[in-house]
């Protein structure tokens, strides 16, 4: 009953409950924090992709950051498209995604700033061991896809505007093939479910290596075309980037904490933690934020340069 009363008052628009709630705290202390530099007690909302979350990486490494700053990280796992959309609406403070084209658009539109390359793994083309289309060991991912299309072997597509889906569409594009027909199935699900759907139909699909490794023991699919980590074609690389939401667009974005998070996760310590994270004895992500060499392209949309007068 006390709860009910509290909620009732809350819904009547009294701000008390909001002040009491964590979310309220964050934003209130965020807006009148001029007197204090502390971020302790605040909440950082991170929208990210299913592949970073479902592999358990974030839960594993976030404890360190939360302890260091005395804050809470709320990780919301969506497809890359949905993660960026939440950020675009000002509903998150920082985004970690893996579709450079979509990230660049996000930056060009002014929503994201301070982008860093974070880590990478790769995509693999998986399918049934008997490989009806005969793509095993192909050196070219696009050739493999063309072969699957010509054989009209069942192919499961994520179909959900995620980073993996975006990569798949780019690959079809590069292969010069427009997939369609009964053999091409869009599931509109996460990677784990898509793998299960492919498994049940003995179909091919494109998967990030991390999700495939974490699920390999439960399905009968095998890797037929390797990604660059195992000397496969570079086109199957899967780089993750991280960006803060622009406080100039969304003034309630927790920019201080977002930058603290980006600073932490691109630091040597957190990068080591990423590289140490294993599942079933295999490394899932390869850090790439710490490097001796300059890498200016990580900060700006791909291909951007001040000379090209590209705004």
């Amino acid at each position, binding site marked *: 009953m006390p*709860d009910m009363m509290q909620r*009732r008052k809350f819904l009547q628009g009294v*701000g008390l409950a909001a002040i009491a709630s964590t979310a309220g705290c964050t934003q209130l202390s965020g807006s009148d924090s001029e007197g204090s530099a502390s971020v302790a007690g605040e909440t950082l909302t991170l929208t990210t992709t299913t592949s970073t979350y479902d592999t358990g990486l974030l*839960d*594993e490494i976030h404890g360190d950051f939360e302890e260091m700053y005395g804050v809470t990280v*709320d*990780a*919301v796992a969506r497809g890359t498209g949905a993660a960026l959309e939440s950020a675009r609406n*000002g509903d998150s403070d920082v985004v970690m995604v893996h579709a450079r084209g979509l990230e660049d658009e996000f930056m060009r539109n002014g929503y994201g700033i301070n982008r860093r390359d974070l880590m990478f793994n790769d995509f693999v083309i998986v399918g049934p061991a008997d490989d009806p289309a005969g793509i095993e060991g192909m050196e070219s991912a696009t050739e493999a896809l063309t072969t699957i299309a010509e054989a009209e072997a069942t192919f499961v597509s994520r179909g959900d505007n995620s980073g993996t889906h975006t990569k798949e569409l780019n690959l079809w594009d590069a292969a010069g093939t427009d997939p369609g027909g009964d053999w091409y199935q869009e599931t509109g699900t996460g990677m784990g479910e898509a793998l299960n759907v492919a498994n049940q139909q003995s179909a091919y699909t494109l998967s990030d290596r991390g999700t495939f490794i974490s699920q*390999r023991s439960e399905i009968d699919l095998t890797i037929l075309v390797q990604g660059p980590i195992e000397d496969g074609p570079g086109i199957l690389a899967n780089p993750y980037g991280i960006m803060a939401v622009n406080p100039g667009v969304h003034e309630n974005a927790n920019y201080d904490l977002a930058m603290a998070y980006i600073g932490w996760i691109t630091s040597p310590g957190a990068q080591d933690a990423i590289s140490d994270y294993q599942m079933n004895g295999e490394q899932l992500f390869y850090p790439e934020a710490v490097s001796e060499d300059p890498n200016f392209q990580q900060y700006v949309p791909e291909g951007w340069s001040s000379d090209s007068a590209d705004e």
Partner: protein
Amino acid sequence: MPFDPVAPLFPLFVDLPFEQGYVRSIMYVSLYVSVTAVALSTLFSIPVALLMGFTEFPGKQFVKSVINTGMGFPSVVVGLLVLFAVSNQGPLGAMNLIFTKEAMIISQFVLATPPITAISLAAITGVDENVRDAARALGGTRLDVALVVIKEARYGIATAVLAGFGRAISEVGSVLIVGGNITSADGISKTRTLTTAIQLEARQGQYDTAMVLGAVLVVLVLTVNAIVVRFGDEGSMNR
């Protein structure tokens, strides 16, 4: 490849790969959100049902149709509407409700209210006219009459509340959208419910653990139903 020879033998006793307190915390969030939302819905629905049961007004059939349509309203759509409302850009954006339990309560309130109103209305309309007339004849005020009718219709109203609760706690689409399915790094749920946890396990292809969580959900709903029915019986004994 690691292979656990025991797990396949006991699909229901699989060693759940969860942190301690994880399942308890998602049960808590499920119950907290659904019970609060249903309580609010009930407070809203019963007066509406009484009003509609007792009075005639133009457009009453239309209002009834709207409520009945609401019973079939897809939860994902409700989730999207609430998302637009509570998002930073929405009318309630300044309250910072996105990805909180409060936002989930709002969407479940919207989902639970139509069934509770419609079924309560049916129960109230079903109370014998004579009961109302008798209450009035004994000099009862409008409130007395209403209380008598509620008492007579209590089984129907309990069914209504349970139907609303069933819709709220078993619903996954809207709480996923407005809540964000968040747990902290140490595995304690913030906005993850049993249903969104099941969805998460299914997304990862962990169908075994998804089924176990499904069983937990069923037991939870059964327990709540048993408690409500028990209340109803005690109420009749104390009469």
